[in-house]
């Protein structure tokens, strides 16, 4: 079988697996977020929090919950790293410096998992398992909570109430992420991922003597890192490390974990707004972009244009033998079209166009299918914009899901789509005006520019993958990327929740013959076009200086 055919079959297997879990998981999540009942362990948790999970919150209260929980999380994670040297179970690793500790804390709380530290050398059991892996769960649950709040905004009328943040946070963690993680972790261990607390220990080797391994709770962290679209590796090589991703099968399973919740949330959305077909239209948009990107990525990586790859006879630099070109391309597209940022192959060593695709995937706003929760709300914001553009074309007040998209709503949506590009482009430009950051680059020319553009794209979009030639452990990058991650995560959430509150207050508009049918393929086409035009207009000049210049020269 040719590698290309095997790749296509793997893609089809992935589509089939995602298709099979779409309905049960999507419906389950809709029940989780709509149910009136509280499970017994959840009641204990609410008691410990001191929150009444049945109290409805308006958007400012919901937002205060999100921000308070996240602020406390950043502080806790920062302190945990700062005192690592004095904690038991830290394997003798020292405390993390302030700038790097801030960067890492911001990174994991913002669901980014950008890592300027060296996993196996820097973080012991306590910080990895008790700090970082916990944020993998809860930052994902926060993302889903905000998405569900927006969906409730569309579904509810004349109320302004969006649900209870604490209940959404706890339920997302306990009823969705934890059960899938337990099963998934065991699947990964069965494939060969390690799961132990043996710390640093000696193992024999072929040529005599011993080698030192860093053992840890890897599988349990790996699974939630993919499922929660987080991406922070236990080891420096992330999912390319054989202990994190041991076989071709585990590789396909990890790609499945990355995509399963973001896609299924469109079913949850359809259920909660009372029209499954509306969910299909959003799903269609996400799937079309994802499949298109995957096809382009496979094409450019198999074609392997680039001087070094021509000499080698293939673009295998930075890729593992067991995954090959196809398994690596599938993973890199999934990880950059969601907010995951885990890597099983190193994007910096992709072809010029391949590297550009990973960047463009993030620059679309990570909405195809996007991060858990953030993908859905990002896509719904794009849908609001698309409806608005369509409304302008025919001269009608735009409506979406029975809600008027008026001045107030479109302002929130516009603010949302401005935040991330502003962060990416301003910080990239600032880095090139200053002297020091430029010294951090490994590659020169167009690819060197791409390293820094990639870093801020990845940070502000909460992806976390890297063109890792960049030495990002400097005070400049630790602080600026840290700020970009926090603003890129929480400012958009403010606008999403404000929009949700404003929608929930409205009374529904009856559907008429002139209403744009947003459940039809025509709308899916309009939505894909809107996304491409917005991202294209925003980022084209920057992309032309980096990956396009590199790709065209090859």
């Amino acid at each position, binding site marked *: 079988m040719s590698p290309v055919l095997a790749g296509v079959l793997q893609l089809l297997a992935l589509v089939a697996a995602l298709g099979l879990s779409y309905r049960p998981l999507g419906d389950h999540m809709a029940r989780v977020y709509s149910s009136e009942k509280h499970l017994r362990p959840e009641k204990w948790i609410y008691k410990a929090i001191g929150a009444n999970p049945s109290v409805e919150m308006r958007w400012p209260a919901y937002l205060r919950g999100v921000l308070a929980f996240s602020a406390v999380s950043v502080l806790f994670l920062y302190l945990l790293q700062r005192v690592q040297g004095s904690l038991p179970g830290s394997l003798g690793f020292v405390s993390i410096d302030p700038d790097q500790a801030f960067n890492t804390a911001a990174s994991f709380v913002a669901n980014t998992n950008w890592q300027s530290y060296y996993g196996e050398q820097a973080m012991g059991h306590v910080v990895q398992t008790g700090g970082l892996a916990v944020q993998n769960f809860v930052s994902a649950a926060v993302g889903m909570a905000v998405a569900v709040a927006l969906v409730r905004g569309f579904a509810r009328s004349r109320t302004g109430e969006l649900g209870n943040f604490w209940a959404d946070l706890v339920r997302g963690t306990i009823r969705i992420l934890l059960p899938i993680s337990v099963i998934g972790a065991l699947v990964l261990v069965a494939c060969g991922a390690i799961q132990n607390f043996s710390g640093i220990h000696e193992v024999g080797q072929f040529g005599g003597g011993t080698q030192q391994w860093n*053992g840890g709770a890897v599988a349990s962290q790996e699974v939630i890192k993919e499922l929660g679209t987080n991406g922070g590796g236990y080891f420096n090589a992330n999912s390319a490390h054989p202990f994190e991703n041991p076989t071709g099968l585990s590789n396909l399973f990890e790609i499945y974990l990355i995509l399963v919740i973001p896609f299924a949330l469109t079913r949850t959305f359809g259920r909660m707004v009372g029209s499954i077909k509306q969910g299909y239209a959003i799903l269609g948009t996400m799937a079309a972009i994802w499949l298109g990107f995957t096809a382009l990525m496979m094409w450019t990586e198999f074609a392997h244009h680039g001087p070094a790859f021509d000499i080698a006879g293939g673009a295998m630099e930075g890729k593992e033998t067991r995954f090959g070109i196809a398994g690596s391309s599938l993973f890199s597209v999934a990880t950059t079209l969601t907010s995951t940022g885990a890597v099983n192959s190193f994007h910096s*060593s992709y072809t010029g166009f391949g590297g550009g695709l990973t960047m463009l995937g993030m620059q679309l706003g990570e909405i195809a299918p996007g991060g858990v929760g953030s993908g859905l709300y990002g896509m719904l914001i794009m849908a609001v914009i698309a409806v608005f553009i369509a409304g302008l074309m025919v001269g009608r007040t735009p409506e979406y899901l029975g809600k008027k998209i008026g001045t107030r709503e479109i302002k929130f949506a516009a603010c949302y789509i401005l935040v991330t590009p502003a962060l990416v482009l301003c910080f990239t430009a600032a880095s090139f005006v200053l002297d020091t950051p430029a010294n951090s680059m490994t590659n020169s020319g167009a690819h060197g520019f791409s390293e820094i553009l990639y870093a801020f794209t990845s940070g502000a979009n909460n992806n976390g993958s890297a063109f890792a030639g960049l030495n990002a452990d400097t005070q400049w990058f630790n602080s600026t990327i840290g700020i970009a991650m926090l603003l890129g995560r929480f400012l958009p959430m403010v606008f999403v929740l404000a929009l949700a509150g404003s929608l929930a207050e409205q009374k529904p508009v009856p559907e008429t013959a002139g209403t744009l049918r947003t459940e039809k393929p025509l709308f899916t086409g309009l939505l894909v076009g809107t996304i491409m035009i917005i991202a294209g207009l925003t980022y084209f000049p920057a992309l032309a200086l980096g990956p396009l210049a590199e790709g065209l020269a090859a």
Partner: protein
Amino acid sequence: MNNSVGNTGRVLWAGLRALLVLTVVCGVLYPLAVTGVAQVAFPGRANGSEIEDASGKVVGSELIGQRYDLPLKDGEETPAPDLRWFQPRPSNGLGTNSVNTRYSIVLSGATNRSGDNADLIRWVTDAKAAVVEDNSTDGHRVKPSDVPADAVTSSGSGLDPHISPEYARLQVHRVAERNKLDVATVERLVAEHTDDRILGFIGEPRVNVLALNTALRDLVAKG
């Protein structure tokens, strides 16, 4: 909306308590439970898939690639490969233990060099010349076009335990000559250690270098 200090303080306090409870659930109970089950159900895999040679000595992990080099000689920066053994892929991206010098942990990492990077072009060119030279024996010439891409490029982890079947077959003549074995015997050994795609389409065909070299050494020892 009440934005008084007291209220903000209450929300932060609730947030802290929520974080602590969820830390216990997701950061303590969950990993311990998974570790417990994994250690009972898959003890070998959960502890790193160690493999032993015929004498029962642990030679490493099935999953972690190793180097098969001669001892470092004076004046050399990098040790020369020990050509008796099948050689793995290059690993130019591995750093040194820089953060934690008290350990020498097995590190992982990629070169992160782009396709037009001068270092990478030089590494690939040099590696290709070396593969051609090392594997050409008196009766068997290797052509540059025979060298597969994985033989001259570094992997993502730098610890790739596998090489492609093409690269393994390319080394057969050399390995047979250095170990005074039949070419056919070594070819059979490579074939036995070649894994096809899982279910015929998942992943890529590959040869585990440590398993292959361990079997080779056992074979040579048996004479």
